[in-house]
């Protein structure tokens, strides 16, 4: 295959391209979805192909094909060049690329047990057993679901600058949920996270460590209890965000707004732009002094972990927010050059068929000093919410509204019951500036999100967010209808 890839690069160089790179990817996935004692979906999927990106006369062209014979690859390379040539007729500025090292290397996600080697009936057995446990808890539990997903990607990258990189990325994970239903309401609880569960670039040992069966009874009981729980009141109060929900808060209100392509308007018509304009870099008070956020594409087990991005740039760790001040964007070679800097290595495509773009890697909120129990004890009045249920944010990433599966009522330093249908809403910098406490490393956990959407056609990427429970003051809660 390397010979074919090399031929593709030679073809476009001969036709006048100033830079090109090519990726061959073979992607294998396994998805198991159980519901109410049945396996609703069980699929094993294989997708392979190549994607060629060409820079010609200062403009990009990209073409992907599932046909991997020599002729098809050459035809696809020519197609990419024709697209670049056409794009170059409608440009304002030439695309310039920052410097990149020439790399010849390989990388493989470290893991103990290959999830694809596990007998699938064992996995199904685990999920069905969880289903049975959940079903036994309450007569109102009507829907029980279980998920297991495994992903393996083999990728060859070559560029006209001489880089040759081979990577094997592997991840897996899953989760369970129980829904209680009565005539006028429906409430769901999930473990360890909603919309499928938690995921990690680790082997099957990660799925085993989730210990789904140990948590099945509790989530079913909570789902049933939520049916009878009072509606979360409308109030401006103290909000404690549990890690699973805080991960999504980081994702939507910090991760997306620091994508420099988005900041520069490249996603304006679909996903939108960003309030974090270039003049704010290094000066803007994004959050309180307790807010320290970094990007780390090499964090072990993070869903955004790799050795090299899809431009051949090494994985890096750097500050995004330090003591509340906004420091850095996620950049590509094309965008970093605007700051006369090198790329910080965040460019990925979700497959061979799509053009690489800036994506989150692992965007992590660093732990603070608070013990979780002490933090609750220190909170006179408020709610502790966790496990995402709904999410929405405006196209500049300012006004957000999230819903969670459950809220725990906090009164005079202790948990005093639950509310259903909790929501909270705010404006991003106001919200992060109201953060007055972050819990310590004992409460810190890496969360994996396998379905981050961006770009056209929509690309679905896997990203990570490490965080621990944090406290925010004077937050609007309880917007429901």
């Amino acid at each position: 295959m390397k010979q074919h890839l090399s031929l593709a690069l030679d073809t476009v160089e001969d036709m006048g391209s100033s830079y090109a790179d090519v990726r061959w990817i073979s992607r294998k996935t396994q998805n198991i979805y159980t519901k109410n004692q049945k396996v609703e979906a069980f699929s094993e999927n294989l997708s392979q192909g190549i994607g060629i990106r060409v820079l010609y006369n200062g403009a990009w062209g990209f073409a992907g094909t599932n046909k991997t014979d020599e002729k098809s690859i050459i035809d696809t390379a020519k197609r990419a060049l024709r697209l670049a040539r056409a794009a170059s007729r409608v440009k304002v500025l030439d695309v310039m690329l920052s410097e990149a090292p020439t790399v010849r290397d390989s990388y493989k996600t470290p893991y103990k047990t290959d999830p694809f080697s596990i007998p699938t009936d064992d996995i199904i057995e685990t999920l069905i057993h969880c289903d049975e446990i959940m079903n036994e808890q309450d007569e109102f539990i009507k829907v029980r679901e279980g998920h297991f997903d495994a992903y393996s990607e083999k990728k060859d990258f070559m560029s006209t600058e001489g880089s040759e990189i081979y990577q094997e990325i592997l991840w897996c994970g899953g989760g369970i949920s129980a829904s209680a239903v009565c005539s006028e309401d429906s409430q769901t609880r999930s473990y360890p996270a909603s919309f499928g569960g938690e995921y990690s670039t680790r082997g099957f040992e990660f799925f085993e460590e989730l210990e789904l069966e140990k948590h099945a009874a509790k989530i079913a009981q909570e789902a049933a209890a939520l049916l009878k729980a009072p509606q979360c009141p409308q109030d401006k109060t103290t909000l404690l965000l549990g890690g699973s929900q805080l991960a999504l808060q980081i994702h939507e209100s910090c991760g997306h707004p620091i994508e420099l392509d988005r900041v520069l308007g490249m996603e304006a018509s679909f996903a939108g732009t960003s309030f974090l304009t270039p003049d704010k870099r290094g000066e803007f008070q994004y959050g309180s002094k307790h807010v320290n956020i970094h990007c780390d594409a090499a964090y072990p087990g993070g869903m955004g972990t790799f050795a090299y991005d899809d431009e051949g740039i090494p994985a890096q760790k750097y500050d995004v927010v330090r003591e509340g001040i906004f420091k850095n964007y996620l950049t590509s070679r094309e965008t970093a050059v605007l700051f006369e800097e090198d790329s910080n290595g965040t460019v990925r495509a979700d497959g061979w068929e799509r053009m690489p773009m800036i994506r989150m890697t692992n965007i992590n909120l660093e732990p603070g000093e608070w013990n979780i129990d002490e933090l609750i004890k220190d909170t006179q009045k408020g709610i502790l919410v966790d496990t995402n249920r709904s999410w929405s944010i405006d196209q500049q990433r300012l006004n957000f509204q999230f819903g969670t599966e459950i809220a725990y009522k906090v009164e005079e330093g202790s948990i005093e019951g639950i509310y259903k249908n909790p929501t909270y809403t705010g404006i991003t910098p106001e919200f992060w500036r109201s953060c007055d406490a972050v819990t310590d490393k004992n409460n810190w956990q890496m969360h994996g999100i396998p379905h981050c959407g961006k770009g056209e056609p929509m690309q679905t990427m896997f990203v990570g967010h490490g965080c621990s429970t944090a406290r925010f003051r004077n937050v609007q809660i309880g917007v429901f209808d």
Partner: protein
Amino acid sequence: MIGKEQALNMIEYALGKSPADQTEILMMGHDHFLTRYANSQIHQNTAEENSTFFIKAVLGKKIGISTINQATPKALETAVESACKAAKNQKEVNDYPGLPQKAPIVDFNAFCPRTAEINAEEKALIVQDMIVRTHGDRMALNGAFYTGSYEVAAGNTNGILAYHKGTLTDISALTSSNNTTGYASASARDVDTIDYTRLIEESLESAKAYDKTITLEPGKYPVVLEEYAVADMLIYLSYMGLSAESVENENSFLIPHRGEKLFSESISLFDDALNPLAFGTPFDYEGVPKSRLDFIKKGTITGNCSHNHYSAFKAGTKTTGHALPPDAGLSTAYPFHLIMEAGDAQNQDLLDAMGTGILIKRFHYLTSVHDLKTILSGMTRDGVFWVEKGKITARISDMRFTQSIIEALKNVEALSSKRKSIWFRDFSVDFPITAVVPRLFIKEFNFTGQTEF
């Protein structure tokens, strides 16, 4: 695109090779081109071709699924083997009725050679022309121009063997200045039917700066929703409660309201992939013919929900032809070609009827807050205007709403006579998800927050 002959030959070959009791094969392929532009220049110009085979193997009551994107006999044999292996390791699905039987399918011409063949240079010239048209208003052009062809073929060991191909184009124009944005988009089978000049005019119209931009306090206001916003709202209704899965989960608004007249006689909502405006296919992803399915008829909830073969069997009814590709789940069947009947009002009539209120172009980032109660939250974008005595008097800073869709439909006072086909291209290149909708005047809509622009 591998074409009808190769697609059907490959399906028949694979069916012949399968040792399973029953086998179903779906092929979905596309060859598409997407030109993206931002800040008045093309920044991504891409092409993608792919063909994926989905194999469903049934061993007794056990079902296994595999997919592969290589159209060779060897690759398909591997995929059949993988599906059979998956089935062997499965638990039995005791109430599984087997695969659907063959039924007559009437194919229709959805393929426009011009859309399939328009080249990159021509598309660049069209984009260039649109950019030039924004110069007079000192606006930048952002958006995407899609052209492409798709094919779908389905076969099973009960005799189903069907093929269909089509083309689609979609173009969007978000015009922007420092403090305003406007939007328009259009979709069609034939790229030559798109009126690019009109598209830019519509976008510039909604980007126009007025003497003032006002902010409104959260609260309930009358609104006129343009077609883009109505389509967004209805596609969420589809996810929230119009499928058999929602009904089976007892999580659909259809259950408590079956047979009830909830809305005015002017509200009718149905799914019809065969309507040319809906850009559908003649059969679903099990190879079952498509047909019309009514959800709301003259204001009354019919109680119908969308089924595939399995969900229908469980419910003691017949499939409605809404199966999705098999990896989506055994019971998953959504109506993806919703059509709302038009009313009799001109666009200006809607504003006149509203008098004072808000005109909304488009929504952004919707989320389901509560499926059963059909509560949706999201933002406005790209053209929100304050209207007094039927005339626009100011732009409004974008707002957040949190609103039950059912309550909104109860409050519809008038519908436009013209409708627009909206294709949700970003979520469905291979299987078009569309809505054909009028504009709506809704007497009360719940806004719950503001933003800073």
